[in-house]
């Protein structure tokens, strides 16, 4: 068990090292969610005047969207990096090691969870500087947990695609998947203001619960009624995509 934990830690360190070795590669992933948040706020800011938004500040409403987008981008980037390792043959060498496949997966996914905190922290700092109210420590802790959880689920989804297509050219598929999952929710407007078709999708989409879980504290108070569906949704997503990714890992080289 101790040896497996050491393997996971080593793989997580390798994932985090990429940020230090190729900082230029990490910049777009860190900046993009913040640019997106600021842009949306500048363009659609007046939407918050509509009855139904529980805040007069659109930026406050979409902070959670930016944080989850960062998690989605990080997860997708993990899949792209794995595809690169597959193309370059490093992944095959990893498979030859005595480390169980599930442990290999845990290391890669764990690094995605930690890296997702980087864009989230940057975005939150910018948002707070621009006047978003401090949501409280409990809300921040919960948001961090959910961001890490969603990044893990997104990483499992992207890894699944990387193992299936074995090329970085699958990157748009990984990005579109996370883009749709995060934005086809109550991202832009409260549920009652969405058009019928988008409301239906948002109701089905489990990421809606995750988003509402991150949003509480920024808009309204932290409540258990919003928290447990968010935790359940993110756990379910990790369980489903994690199982599929473990199965994909076990099939490698079989």
């Amino acid at each position, binding site marked *: 068990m101790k040896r497996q934990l050491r393997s996971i830690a080593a793989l997580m360190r390798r994932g985090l090292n990429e940020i230090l070795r190729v900082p230029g590669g990490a910049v777009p992933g860190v900046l993009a969610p913040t640019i*997106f948040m600021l842009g949306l706020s500048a363009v659609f800011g007046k939407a918050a005047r509509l009855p139904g938004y529980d805040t007069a500040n659109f930026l406050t409403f979409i902070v959670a969207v930016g944080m989850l987008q960062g998690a989605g981008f990080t997860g997708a980037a993990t899949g792209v990096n794995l595809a690169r390792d597959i193309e370059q043959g490093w992944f095959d060498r990893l498979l030859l090691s005595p480390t169980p496949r599930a442990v290999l997966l845990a290391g890669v996914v764990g690094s995605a969870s930690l890296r997702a905190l980087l864009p989230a922290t940057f975005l939150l700092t910018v948002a707070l500087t621009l006047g978003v109210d401090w949501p409280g420590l409990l809300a921040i802790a919960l948001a961090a947990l959910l961001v890490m959880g969603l990044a893990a689920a997104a990483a499992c989804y992207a890894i699944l695609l990387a193992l299936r297509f074995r090329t970085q050219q699958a990157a748009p598929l990984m990005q579109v998947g996370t883009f749709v999952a995060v934005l086809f929710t109550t991202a832009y407007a409260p549920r009652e203001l969405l058009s019928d078709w988008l409301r239906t999708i948002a109701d089905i989409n489990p990421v809606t619960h995750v988003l509402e879980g991150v949003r509480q504290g920024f808009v309204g108070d932290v409540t258990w009624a919003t928290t447990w569906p968010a935790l359940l949704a993110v756990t379910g997503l990790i369980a489903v995509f994690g199982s599929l990714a473990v199965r994909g890992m076990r099939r490698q080289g079989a």
Partner: protein
Amino acid sequence: MRASIVVLARRALRNAARRPQFLAPLVLFPSLFLALNVGGLERTTTLPGFPKVDGFLDFQLAAGITQSLLLGGVSAGIAVALDIEGGFFDRLVASPAPRSAIVLGRVLAAGVIAAFQVSYFLVLGAVFGVDVKGGVLGVLSVLAIGILAGTGFGAIGVLIALRARNASTVQGIFPLVFVVLFISSAFFPADLLSSPADAVAAYNPLSYIAEGMRHPIAFSNDVVALLEGLGAAAAVTAVALGLSLQALRGRLRQA
């Protein structure tokens, strides 16, 4: 010269058709974004100051087209950068073909792809109930502004590729597409933008390009909007083409 441009444009189009994974995002991402904006923010048409439109899709369609055309520019830049990385660019330079045809051929291909992008969005709009208010003349206006703007964005992509010389740097400008769009009136009426986006939007050529296409779609044919749209697109194209040819000369001097 003309034959070389056409041959190189044809090659660029053939290569684009062979790699649908590069072409599909040009319409896929803006279509998803369009759906999201319309589905999530359709009630904003009731805000005081929002112009009277049949639906938010009527208003947003021009934004989707503009976004797609900008991504087309990024795609053209990536293609040129890949040619440089793969050594094909150097072989072209060594060939007897006029050097400016290397840029003009790629930019012509961007214009042709732009025609497909604009047509795609007009059909998509029609499927979801958009009735182009300007009629046939309006459709032709949208096509004219869109193709001209797409050609200019292609030239910007080529310019960046010639300067950067690698595909990953060109790919890195993707977030900038959103930045320049967000500081224009492409997505929302200029009067309802927040500060400082509203001030910048007045000087952003994308505002005029998007408004030029929006008028015939959502309102009516308007000569001023048409001329402003065509003028902005022509200015972008002329400046970008001039700078691209200059960048090509600079690169040849270094070679």
